[in-house]
């Protein structure tokens, strides 16, 4: 059990899988000579060579689609899209092709590919480089979408994704790359489609994923000192979505708040709130509240960016509102 960064966990997992299975190859912009925009693939070109660590031109639709075709013939390509924002240029290949082929061709072919890409704002990258549109992919049958929050999950879920025969989107997060955590040694294959109670509690459930899970845990720790016991459910997998775990938690706590970095309307939080009100209706003491980003193209200026993005303070405020509305007493 070593303490390593989220970046390191991703890097090590890629290295292990490249070693383990000669059908695994990496494709993407600047992953080789440049060692990756965010250095996840640093050193891999030297170790595995240009055939398996393949730098691509700036052609998202072309190289993501090429990965699909390579996967149809049995390779297991792991594509890096520099940021989630640029996946819009490849989305026809991802949604109209990778997600459709297995069913549309009557189960005769599968597309064992992985798309790794970081989302998230807060880096002052402006409106076009700060989006969290994973909910779009989570909406699409035929895809699998995971969003690890910790180095350990990054390892386990990326491993599972690479060994899965369906197209899997592994959502990373710019703000998590440098975060550290304990990662079990040896092979760890995560389970796509399962959420986890990452902190048990009795008074209120916070549902989150990716960076928001880290914020939720921080808030839960703080509130524990005020005698509030917050349970944190980390979705881990957005598609399939583990509704059972979410509802079981709320049936226990009877209060729920969803935290996400994305815009509020039609976001992941909407599905979670809709699920909870149906799956735990009679257990709910108050409406499920959502804490999400303000619905504007994210501004560059720091004070505006800060105002637009959800944070621990906003989550804490809403948790207190829910507790007060339900006459919670310590």
């Amino acid at each position, binding site marked *: 059990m070593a303490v390593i960064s989220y970046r390191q966990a991703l890097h090590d997992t890629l290295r292990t899988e490249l070693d383990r299975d000669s059908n695994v190859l990496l494709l993407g912009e600047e992953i080789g000579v440049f060692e990756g925009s965010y250095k996840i693939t640093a050193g891999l070109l030297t170790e595995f060579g240009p055939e398996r660590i393949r730098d691509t031109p700036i052609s998202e639709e072309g190289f993501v689609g090429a990965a699909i075709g390579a996967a149809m013939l049995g390779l297991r390509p792991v594509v890096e899209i520099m940021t989630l924002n640029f996946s819009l240029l490849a989305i026809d290949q991802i949604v109209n092709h990778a997600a459709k*082929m297995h069913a549309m061709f009557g189960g005769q072919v599968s597309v064992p590919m992985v798309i790794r890409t970081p989302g998230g704002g807060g880096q002052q990258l402006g409106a076009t480089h700060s989006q969290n549109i994973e909910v779009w992919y989570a909406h699409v049958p035929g895809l699998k979408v995971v969003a690890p929050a910790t180095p350990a999950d990054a390892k386990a879920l990326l491993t599972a994704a690479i060994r899965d025969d369906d197209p899997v989107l592994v959502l990373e997060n710019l703000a998590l790359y440098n975060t550290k955590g304990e990662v079990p040694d040896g092979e760890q294959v995560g389970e796509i489609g399962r959420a986890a109670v990452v902190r048990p509690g009795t008074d209120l459930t916070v549902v989150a994923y990716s960076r928001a899970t880290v914020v939720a845990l921080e808030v839960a720790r703080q509130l524990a000192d005020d005698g509030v016991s917050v349970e944190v459910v980390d979705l881990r997998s957005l598609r399939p979505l583990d509704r059972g775990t979410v509802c079981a938690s709320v049936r226990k706590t009877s209060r729920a708040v969803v935290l996400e970095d994305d815009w509020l309307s039609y976001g992941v939080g909407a599905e979670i709130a809709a699920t909870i009100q149906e799956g735990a209706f009679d257990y709910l003491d108050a409406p499920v509240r959502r804490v999400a980003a303000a619905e504007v193209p994210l501004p560059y200026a720091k004070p505006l960016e800060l105002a637009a993005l959800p944070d621990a303070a906003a989550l804490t405020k809403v948790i207190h509102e829910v507790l007060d509305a339900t006459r919670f007493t310590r």
Partner: protein
Amino acid sequence: MPPEEEPPEVLRGYYRQMALIRAFELRAGEMYQRARIGGYCHLNLGEEPTVVGLMAALESRDYLFTTYREHGYALARGLEPGRVMAELFGKTTGVSGGWGGSMHLFDAKARLLGGYGIVGGQLPPATGAALALAHRGEPGPDAEAVMCLLGDGTTNIGAFHESLNLAALWRLPIVYVIVNNRLGMGTTVERSAAEPDLYKRGCSYRIPGARVDGNDVLAVRDAARAALHRARTDRQPGLLETVSYRLRGHSVVDPARYRSREETERLRDLDPVPAFRAELLGAGVLDEADAARIDAEADQQVAAAVEFAEQSPDPTPDQLFTHAYATPVPNAPHLLPGDPVVSGEAGLWR
């Protein structure tokens, strides 16, 4: 005139394939009108020599990616007409199990890796298939290669540019074939492509281009063979343009009113199937009796195909989630419209 050295049985075989495709497509159009076939239905009428020539050049070890206008390719690639018609009928015996329909024929064994309905969508995956071949095998005359078909109108979409650039940059064993039938729906090549000599559009990637008469089955075959050979041996991607006419509307429902009466008249005389038939008769490769027999056999095959499709079972609703995922995982959604989202105890409320 077919070159003397071409064995007569080969030429007869080509005519047999053309006759089959022609009969199949006419019948498919009919079945569509009679609502036995749904969705969109695009026919290869007028492209028979192109289809047969290309498939004659493609070896069984090669991989094929096509467009939504692909019935003929499936037949020429050797798929049973019954299973192709059954797919158009949406039956479980169809080549894609009824999931794809006319636009999405697929057969893993025949290495027909799909018809694709999104214009240009097949180009990146075809390029990636060639990448897999390059990744695994060595170049050489017996190496495998990929053939990727596209229409003239499809040369204007971004995926064309990105795919050809990747193929050339990575030296992939692939031949892109532009089946130029002069129209994309109602739009002529001149109205859609700023370089209407489409075979020249490889210039931006240093990919050599060639253009052949799509009505000349032997010319098409030989040009495709040559391009495939360079792809196999030198990993030199190729761009081949075949030029023919789309004899009917874009799809069965299109009356093609945008075509002048003169053009429509002219097209009748340009029909390449009777022309090839006459050619073989003239060359003594066929006599009237042979030709009539071949035509009759084609009709019988197609009648049998329709019969097979008619008799085949429809898929049943319980099969809706059979192909949800290749690797099963927990919590995969299996809800029918109106089901509660959380099943079991969790879904109930007091």
